[in-house]
């Protein structure tokens, strides 16, 4: 099996779906000849032509809004927003149009589309490029929000997203694009949307994470296991909306302790919802409060400070250790 980076895995998923389904169109800023600023769509225009893979004028709201029209017409648009922070400019078209047209039309119109956008910290991008937006879109009912943590999942989740009749926001963490390779089947497969995965089994504590924080959590888990001999489970949420509440509750019911690791700021983040779910469905299993390891409640910082601000291995490990205390 080939060993691919996440960029390659996503490129391959798009390639497969373009080949398989003539209704799939890819468009956005610089996705054509340039192959995307991260080369995610590299070679696709050359292979499938300008009608299937094309550049648009610089207008995020119109990119999503025109995708809404295409989906209404039965196409399966896969628009790219160059960086997730720029989805703010298309916020209305995403949350009140794409996410709600199925509802508004009394269920008669499907919004099968996938909005792809890179995001995430630690790679020295300018303002807004790194913003964690998932907790905003978690509130856009009708929309699904997916964040893969591995190349294998990225391909399988993206194919599932393109085949889903509902709109999906597919967020790709820039730091994961090329940070490691994984065996990825060259053929078609899907990874189910709405299902979390156990990234690492354990029985003493659940570390709940997603995106780039999964790997960090796994590493921190190893550190703590070596140091304390504790058995640390890491749960990769994979889908942020709708959350896999069952997987969260199962893991915490088993371990009785949990922390949530989230790259974005604390207030109103995904971690809060995870904790609310635990509180509602597994409170009596808990030995200790569920700690949150997050960025502080401020904007994504100037790059010289980003490593200070992002949850570090040490901070994650410390939270695990604190929560493991009797």
């Amino acid at each position: 099996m080939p060993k691919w980076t996440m960029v390659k895995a996503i490129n391959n998923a798009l390639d497969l779906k373009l080949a398989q389904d003539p209704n799939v169109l890819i468009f956005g800023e610089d996705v054509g000849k340039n192959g995307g600023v991260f080369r995610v769509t590299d070679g696709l225009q050359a292979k499938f032509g300008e009608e299937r893979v094309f550049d648009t004028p610089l207008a995020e709201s119109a990119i999503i809004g025109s995708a809404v029209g295409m989906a209404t017409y039965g196409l399966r648009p896969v628009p790219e927003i160059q960086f997730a922070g720029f989805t703010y400019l298309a916020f209305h078209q995403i949350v009140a149009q794409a996410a709600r047209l199925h509802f508004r039309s009394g269920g008669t119109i499907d919004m099968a589309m996938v909005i792809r956008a890179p995001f995430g910290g630690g790679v020295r991008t300018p303002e807004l490029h790194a913003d964690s937006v998932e907790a905003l879109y978690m509130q856009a009912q009708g929309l699904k929000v997916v964040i893969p943590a591995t190349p294998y999942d990225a391909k399988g989740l993206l194919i599932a997203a393109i085949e889903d009749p509902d709109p999906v926001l597919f967020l790709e963490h820039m730091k994961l694009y090329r940070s490691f390779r994984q065996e990825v089947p060259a053929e078609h497969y899907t990874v189910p949307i709405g299902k979390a995965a156990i990234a690492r089994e354990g029985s003493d504590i659940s570390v709940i994470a997603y995106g780039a924080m999964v790997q960090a959590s796994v590493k921190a888990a190893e550190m703590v296991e070596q140091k304390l001999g504790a058995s640390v489970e890491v749960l990769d949420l994979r889908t942020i909306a709708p959350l896999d509440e069952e997987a969260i509750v199962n893991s915490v019911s088993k371990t009785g302790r949990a922390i949530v690791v989230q790259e974005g700021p604390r207030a109103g983040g995904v971690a809060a919802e995870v904790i609310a779910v635990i509180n509602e469905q597994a409170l009596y299993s808990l030995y200790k409060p569920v700690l949150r390891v997050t960025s502080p409640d401020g904007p994504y910082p100037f790059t010289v400070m980003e490593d200070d601000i992002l949850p570090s291995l040490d901070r994650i490990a410390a939270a695990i250790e604190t929560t493991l205390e009797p």
Partner: protein
Amino acid sequence: MTFSLPTSITQILTPDGKLVGDPPELPPEQLLEFYRWMVLGRIFSNRMVALQRQGRMGTFAPLNGQEAASVGLAAPMQDGDWLVGGYREAISFFMRGIPMVTLMEQWGGYIPISYSPATKVMPIQVVLASQMPHAVGIAMAMQYKKERNAVVAVIGDGATSEGDFNEALNFAGTFKAPLVTVVQNNGWAISVPREKQTAAEYIAHRGPAFGMPGYVVDGNDVFAVYSAVEQCLERARNGEGPSIIEVITYRMGAHTTADDPTKYRPSDELAEWKPKDPITRYTSYLRTLGLLDDAKAADIEAEVRAELQIAVERYEAERPAQRVEKYFDLVYNDTPPQLARQRDELIRALNREQ
């Protein structure tokens, strides 16, 4: 290629029902159909306002004064064409096959169950200008599928100030999308007059700015609107790209049933527009042609009222005894477990409360 800025308002039928240009070549039955739709529109609008006053209908946006524009923009459309309209386009919606009861449901606050892609009409949505990129997307999809169809998008004068309107026009121009944009310039955006909406003399000047022709026509003249839209649709179908038509009309009523125009509108303005009424002038014209007389007009009105009455009765009697269950089915195609749980809990609670 640079298109020139329109400098005057094209008119074919004057307010006193005289021709000052070439009317579209249409058979008498179709000319009468136009009349029927205009009358239906006004009666529908008045009835909706009455229903609202009686507490049997939600907030409604009357269309009085804009009947010719709505008929003229929908009439030249063909089978495969799509209509993406605003909330004041009831007549166009009906002409494109949306049943009256659907709009009653929508304004009444029910799930408008009779929309569907098969009707080729986008459901009304109230966020100004947001429908414009949808219209472009549909047009791009037609283009991609190599179909000889086009989209008619309708928007108010006020809504043209929104970013989405401009982004959409620019997309349409760039992709040469088969789109005809009709700006229903009725002089007001709630309390804000057209002059405070943009400093340009005509909103249609936006056309050349985005690489497409712009036209200005008398919106109370059904022929002027029809001809302009027909030509632009033809252009779009021929792959020559989009265009924009500003129709100059007047909102004779309140913005909606929740609005009081006496707060902001000069009282002589309505008096000024009264003689330009689109139905009056068209009636004169048909009478001159000998296509209409008092008896015929009375027949048509009676027919329309009967049709409307049936719709109202259906709305009130058959209107779905909408249980909240249906709500939960509309969020996603597959209801996620937590939403199913919320549904079950809510229904249990509602049953308990009864």
